[in-house]
């Protein structure tokens, strides 16, 4: 019996070793293999398509798809756009599984996303091992690109600024413009909100503002007990959710319980269709691009392709990320005389400069990190009619 168990264990161990060796060979082979630039290239966008943040995938997907439809052909590329779903409620597992899938697919040279910081942290090393650049249109956690240790690898890029800008921007606005005395900071036990609340709290504490920290599981639907814990003299509740409807619920429950505090959401709650409680605040990495003259034709084209949909703040950076990815592929194809590799594309990302950047101005990369240069955060206040007014 013991012999049989020992034999079974040995066979199991050998098969595991053989499988992983085969897997790593596959990764190396796939990353080193040259791809004919005339063949169809797959460009995935990894984003929450389902779950409470499903609006994010819908918006980002529509813009990234539009970028592929309009930019690939002029760059001489044949590109198939696909969506990979990472519901925020399911944690890092879907991002890891998708990374494995795209690594194994030889037609994938670069990946858009993941959209959320937690998903980036969970999958970046897999992409890096296969030399696949991944460009996020919305993951803002500071430690993905800065500090030590970094949560993401050198294969990770983002086209929006991180919370190292958002945190201080929001905190400074609260202190210098709203003159807050007490702020409640929420987090949702996942990397994005914890990092952002940490960044805001650090600046507020330094400025002598009294802070209270509350932490809710990411699956929370009813915030009544959290609202109960908000002190009656609190001026602001910082609420960096990735589910804008929850920010709306929280703001309404504050009113229900007679609390005077206003909700201040991060970029994750920037959705005028879901978070529209007048008097609340929200920050975002992108301005309202409908006010940028150079984007008029682009917006008109996108609206034609997506009738009835409104221009939000999450979509345009996805167009930008796809633009960077496609240009990097085209540049590396040119350098490789019609063939390219994942590594070549990865090394070309920071060579891409875009003159008329969708978010205004031009896109240039920081020399110190894989972040955009001179990017900033914008603060909006929600008006009585639910519209977002730029206030900072």
């Amino acid at each position, binding site marked *: 019996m013991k012999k049989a168990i020992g034999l079974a264990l040995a066979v199991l161990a050998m098969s595991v070793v053989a499988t992983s060796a085969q897997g790593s060979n596959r990764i190396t082979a796939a990353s080193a293999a040259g791809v004919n630039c005339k063949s169809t290239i797959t460009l995935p966008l990894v984003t929450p398509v389902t779950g*409470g943040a*499903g609006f994010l995938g819908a918006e980002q997907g529509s813009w990234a798809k539009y970028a592929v439809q309009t930019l690939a052909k002029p760059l001489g590329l044949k590109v198939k756009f696909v969506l990979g779903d990472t519901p925020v409620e399911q944690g890092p597992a879907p991002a890891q599984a998708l990374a494995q899938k795209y690594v194994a697919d030889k037609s994938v040279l670069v990946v858009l996303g993941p959209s959320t910081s937690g998903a980036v942290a969970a999958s970046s090393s897999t992409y890096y091992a296969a030399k696949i650049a991944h460009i996020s249109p919305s993951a803002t956690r500071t430690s993905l690109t800065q500090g030590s240790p970094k949560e993401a690898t050198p294969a990770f890029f983002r086209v929006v600024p991180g919370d190292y800008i958002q945190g201080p921007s929001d905190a400074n606005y609260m202190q210098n413009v709203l003159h807050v005395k007490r702020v409640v900071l929420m987090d949702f036990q996942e990397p994005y909100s914890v990092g952002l609340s940490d960044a805001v709290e650090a600046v507020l504490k330094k400025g002598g503002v009294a802070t209270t920290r509350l932490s809710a599981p990411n699956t929370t*639907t009813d915030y009544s*007990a959290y609202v*109960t814990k908000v002190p009656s003299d609190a001026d602001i509740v910082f609420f960096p959710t990735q589910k804008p409807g929850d920010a709306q619920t929280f703001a309404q429950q504050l009113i229900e319980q007679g609390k005077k505090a206003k909700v201040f959401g991060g970029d994750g709650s920037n959705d005028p269709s*879901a978070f529209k*409680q007048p008097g609340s605040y929200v920050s975002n990495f992108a301005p309202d691009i409908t006010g940028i003259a150079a984007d008029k034709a682009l917006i008109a084209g996108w609206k034609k392709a997506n009738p009835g949909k409104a221009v939000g703040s999450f979509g345009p950076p996805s167009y930008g990320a796809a633009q960077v990815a496609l240009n990097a592929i085209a540049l590396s194809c040119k350098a490789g005389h019609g063939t390219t590799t994942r590594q070549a594309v990865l090394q070309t990302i920071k060579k891409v400069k875009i003159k008329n950047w969708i978010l205004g101005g031009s896109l240039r990369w920081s020399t110190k990190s894989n972040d955009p240069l001179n990017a900033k955060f914008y603060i909006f206040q929600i008006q009585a009619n639910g519209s977002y007014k730029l206030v900072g």
Partner: protein
Amino acid sequence: MDTFLQLTVDALTLGSVYALIALGYTLVYGVLKLLNFAHGDVFMVGSFIGFGVLQLLGGTSKPVVPVWLLLVLMVLAAMVGCAVLGVVIERFAYRPLRDAPRIAPLISALGVSFFLANSMQLLFGATPRNYNIFDLANASLYTNGFNIGNVHVALLRIITVVSAFVLMVLLWLLVNRTRTGKAMRATSYDREAAAMMGIDIDKVIVFTFVLGSALAGAGGVLQSLRVPTTVAIGFVVGLKGFTAAVIGGIGSIPGAMAGGLILGFAESFSQGYISTKWSDLIVFSILIAFMIFRPQGLLGRADIRKV
């Protein structure tokens, strides 16, 4: 004291909805000995039916009927819609497996859960749906109500708690004071003996699904009056409802009511007095404690088997 009172109000609101979901689990388990893991998704469908009716009747900004009638119609439509759904689920997913090993209907239940969540997503997308009851009648459902000291009990919470309790009392009366209820209890006690006594088992089981699913539909609307709903909400509320049913004693109707309230109080008070960070841990620790020390739950009866 204000915090205590406010948390009590929160707990009653939360607990009454959990109790409605737990009742669905417990009814089906009582009669079929089946853990209907699709029940949370029936709740989700109910919340979407309520949203659909709200939109059909003009939404919160311009309702074409009085507010009270609007709320009643939303709840009734969800109850009827979910009852029909419950019958369909029973007919196609569970009845063919009634004599199969117990694992088979359990897997079928999980399959139905995924089917419902994904079908709803295909039909309506993943965007959360917010009833926006705050906009209804100038936020009167939030601002009206009564005060206990400094604590405001909003009309919306009163509606939620009272509706849930009325439904629970009606269910209790139905099960304990009617012929159909007696047939349900007999089927629950011994299905074969009940059949030999002339009880139409199929009818009883279908009626059980009608009742459980209707309660889930009502719960879906009552919860979504206050918080947004999504196609993914079924999993979380289903888990909470199941926990409440186990704590109360799965198969016991008063147990499910008590379990829902215990869970509501545990969640609210742990968030209020211990830590918002660890509330889920505390809640599910209670479940584990019950499984270890009192597996039959608070009001359930121990499963005695002839050996």
